[in-house]
């Protein structure tokens, strides 16, 4: 066991072999141990490695994809970033492509028409990308790989015009992305498409880092029993199913010794849940939907987490929007039950 620790303790100075370890520690959880993908997109596709420059990988690691799950790894040293890139590169056994950083001068207006005809089905009408996370092996989904958000500032800042063009010309086997030749387009069309892609700007991304209240809280006008009953009716009235009612310390306290003044009501709408899991398989941390009742000397309080507050941890704009709905839903249920 000591022998396995020795290389681990040498992380500060990244060298050969450490890329694999750093990859496992930082990337494998989302992209898979062998780069097959998961919450993150696959990294081991030959067509991806053939067009992705080291600059692209480096900038992606550093800046992430704001609002699209991939975090910015500011904690990694330059040597560690290079070691990870070296490890990813080793999967192809080929040298990294090197591109010039000059802008291509295509016709953006024409590129827009080409984009609308050929690209919107996967990448969205504004380049906002596909729904959900990279790939998932846990449940059925429409596309095998989420189409990247082309308007994302992290992507726009990482990719060069030349790399965009190379991707268009080559396509990406293992994903729905064809080469533009397969679509009947020419090299000049790629220049026009790149010119248009450079005009895409993400519509909204939450730049507000002000912390949001962690709890939604209502005071009830009723006693504990009546509030609980009201709550169940409000939950069912919104097409949710009550799945469990329990004391806060149930399962930890001895049976019969639980604190009867703190009650949790769990509920679920499985269609809603299924949609949420399609957006982000990590939503388990919100599950199950839950409202807690607390009886004190001063009355009954009803409270839940604020999903908008928790969602901030996920770097997923789509989930943020979903959590706004969840917040409103919780608030409506609690208001119904308490007023």
């Amino acid at each position, binding site marked *: 066991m000591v022998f396995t620790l020795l290389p681990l303790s040498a992380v500060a100075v990244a060298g050969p072999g450490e890329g694999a370890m750093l990859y496992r*520690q930082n990337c494998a959880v989302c992209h898979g141990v062998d780069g097959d993908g998961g919450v993150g997109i696959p990294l081991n596709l030959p067509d991806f490695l053939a067009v992705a420059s080291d600059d692209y990988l480096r900038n992606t690691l550093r800046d992430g994809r704001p609002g699209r799950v991939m975090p910015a790894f500011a904690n990694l040293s330059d040597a560690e970033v290079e070691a990870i890139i070296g490890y990813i590169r080793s999967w192809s056994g080929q040298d990294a492509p090197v591109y010039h950083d000059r802008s291509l001068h295509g016709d953006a207006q024409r590129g827009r028409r080409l984009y609308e005809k050929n690209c919107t089905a996967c990448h969205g009408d504004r380049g906002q990308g596909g729904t959900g996370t990279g790939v998932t092996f846990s449940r059925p989904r429409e596309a095998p790989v989420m189409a990247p958000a082309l308007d994302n500032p992290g992507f726009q800042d990482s990719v060069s015009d030349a790399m965009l063009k190379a991707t268009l010309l080559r396509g990406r086997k293992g994903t729905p992305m064809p080469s533009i030749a397969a679509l009947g387009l020419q090299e000049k069309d790629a220049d026009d498409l790149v010119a248009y892609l450079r005009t895409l700007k993400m519509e909204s991304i939450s730049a507000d880092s002000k912390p949001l209240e962690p709890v939604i809280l209502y005071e009830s006008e009723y006693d504990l029993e009546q509030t609980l009953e009201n709550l169940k009716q409000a939950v069912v009235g919104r097409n949710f199913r009550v799945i469990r009612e329990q004391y806060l310390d149930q399962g930890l306290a001895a049976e019969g010794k639980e604190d009867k003044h703190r009650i949790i009501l769990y509920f679920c709408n499985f269609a809603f849940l299924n949609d949420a899991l399609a957006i982000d398989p990590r939503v388990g941390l919100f599950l199950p939907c839950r409202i807690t009742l607390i009886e004190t000397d001063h009355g009954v309080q009803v409270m839940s987490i604020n999903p908008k507050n928790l969602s901030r941890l996920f770097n997923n704009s789509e989930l943020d929007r979903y959590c706004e709905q969840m917040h409103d839903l919780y608030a409506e249920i609690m208001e119904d039950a308490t007023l």
Partner: protein
Amino acid sequence: MKRFLLLALLLVSPLLAAQDLFMVRSQLPFPEAMSVLQQSIGESGFHISRVQRVDIGLTKSGYKTDKYRIVFFGDLDELHAVSDRHPDLIPSLPLKIAIFAENGETLLLASSFKHLRPFYTSPDLLQKFDQWESAIREILERVRVAE
């Protein structure tokens, strides 16, 4: 010795140290990873209060999904002490870890307390957040490295 080795692993695990969510991939299939998780929670001094079988509800409702569970855990005295002093933390208690199958492997996920810290000033509570985060990282790391 075992605890020292785990601590050493944690110290060199930048993902776990730096991110808002604590997330690891176990190369064990779901049943084995779940078993290790349950054991690991016990080794950190907690008790499991309940396991929510999310996948069962989904499949009964006609949706397809692989295994997906939420494991709730805590310590009774700690739960009472913290919830008595900070009732607004009750919705976040007991602690939980989401565990789900992914292509023959298993992903595990827990939240840090970063989203709660700005609202509390009590040194005791902030220390408790530190302790919980440390314990969760230990629990997850044991599952990650288990073979």
